């Protein structure tokens, strides 16, 4: 341990070189990255998150949707991102674009961006964080302020549409079911009422003589069936009306999954030190430290010099007379 520390502080400048080089390389990598602008929106989540907080559930929902290519493609196509990716061949700009162009003989590829390209682009540039029990912050990084803001808006619109659809689809299925039931019950009621009419036509005396009608068991059975069919029909109609009311546009506003409290802003300054850049610098620092530690271990291993009086005896097998602080030749 002492030997390592001695070597570390004796060669501190030498050992600092790998760290400095690695950090500088990481900084250079950060600098050659294309310009980045961040647009941030804040949402108030209206839905309950079950065991999670509403904000955590919303963040999980956003991350799940971003992990699907179909969602990402819809976000890109409903905003300015798809056009940008089409024109730049996948969002490679700046120095990296120049390098790519040189490696391809001066031609950069352009054309419709694939779903994979959109997916990888968006997944690296959208972050959502729960900043409170019901507040979620969504940040989108883009190459221009317009694209960052437009993509953030498109993301929120698509998110809302997906979540509303996901909530309303079961109700629509219910409505279809009950409407079918209502139709069947309507037909049954019509048939029952028709049967009563036919019976009365066949027995005209029942119309004039109510006592006779009350004593006619067949007539009583037919009218009872018609009454039950009528009640069932009324119940189904009420249910259908309720479901239709829930799905109505007025109800949709009430069941909005979230409210945008802060709309996506249009950034005015570049964001140089985002998560990716900080991670890049940290990785550079870590790599430099690892190299320095390896160098230190090598220095200690290769160091066959004498450092203290104990080593005079153990390594040289000579008797030490003493020691003095470092003096150099004049």
């Amino acid at each position, binding site marked *: 341990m002492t030997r390592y520390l001695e070597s570390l502080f004796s060669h501190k400048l030498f050992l600092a070189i790998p760290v400095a080089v690695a950090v500088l390389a990481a900084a250079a990598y950060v600098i050659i990255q294309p310009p980045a602008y961040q647009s941030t929106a804040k949402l108030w989540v209206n839905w309950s998150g079950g065991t999670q907080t509403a904000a955590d559930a919303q963040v999980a929902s956003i991350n799940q949707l971003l992990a699907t290519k179909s969602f990402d493609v819809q976000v890109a196509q409903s905003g300015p991102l798809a056009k940008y990716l089409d024109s730049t061949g996948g969002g490679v700009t700046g120095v990296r674009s120049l390098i790519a162009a040189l490696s391809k003989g001066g031609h950069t590829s352009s054309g419709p961006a694939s779903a994979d390209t959109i997916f990888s682009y968006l997944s690296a540039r959208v972050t959502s964080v729960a900043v409170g029990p019901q507040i979620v912050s969504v940040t989108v990084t883009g190459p221009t302020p317009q694209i960052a803001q437009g993509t953030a808006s498109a993301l929120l619109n698509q998110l809302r549409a997906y979540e509303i659809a996901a909530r309303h689809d079961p109700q629509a299925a219910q409505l279809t079911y009950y409407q079918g039931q209502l139709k069947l019950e309507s037909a049954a009621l019509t048939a029952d009422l028709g049967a009563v009419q036919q019976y009365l036509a066949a027995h005209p005396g029942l119309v004039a003589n109510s006592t006779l009608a009350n004593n006619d068991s067949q007539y009583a059975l037919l009218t009872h069936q018609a009454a039950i069919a009528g009640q069932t029909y009324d119940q189904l109609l009420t249910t259908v009306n309720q479901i239709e009311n829930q799905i109505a546009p007025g109800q949709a506003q009430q069941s909005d999954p979230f409210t945008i409290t802060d709309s996506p802003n249009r950034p005015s300054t570049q964001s140089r030190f985002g998560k990716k850049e900080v991670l890049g610098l940290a990785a550079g620092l870590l790599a430099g430290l690892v190299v320095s530690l390896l160098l230190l271990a090598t220095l200690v291993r290769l160091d066959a*010099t004498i450092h*203290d009086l104990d080593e005079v005896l153990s390594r040289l097998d000579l008797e030490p*007379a003493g020691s003095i602080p470092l003096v150099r030749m004049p």
Partner: protein
Amino acid sequence: MSLPIHRPAPKVPQAARVERTTRQAIAQPPAPVLDGCRLALQKIGFPGAPSLGIASSIRGEGRSTVAVASALVLADYGVRTVLMELDFQNPSLASQMGIPSHPGLGEFLQGSASWHEVLYPVSDEFFVLPAGTLKLSHPRALLEVSNRDLLGVLRGRGCSIVADLPPLLGTGIGAQAASLFPDILLVVRAGMVSSATVKEAVSSLPTPPRVLLNGVSSSVPDWARRLAGL
């Protein structure tokens, strides 16, 4: 018995004469160096031992500074001490002590200068014998020192001798010079010379030397020591 030390002889240059008469204060090694050398000399048997050669494996290990410090320590004990330059290839004592580089041992061996002229007083008990200008080969000069028993002559006049020897490796005469002295203090610069080099140097000596480690001061700052629990 006293040394034949007199005021400047006619052959001594005017500038040197001024230095010798005024006995300018020399730049002393730092107190920790003097203390370290004092302890080392006590361990070896000084004051009392007649002569000591200060050696090192290679150049740049602090040998000359240790030689000066050792001589100063002995003089401080009241021992009449002669600091002798035997590193003929790269003599540094004269400039270090602020005395003329010649006449010195070379002129004495040729018979062109006397003891009076080549022993430069630094204090009442401390004299310096510079290498001077050698017209003999270095091995031959050392042989002359041995044959004429110059060390014995000085010892016979009540002097202890501290010699700044040539490095044991790379000069060709290190071992020969060291063989003139019964006690050798080997200066080893900490963190500079490999143990294999030191062993090679020691193997050229007839008896194992004592080792004075130069530069044991740690480069680890106090806060790092505390942090590491050292």
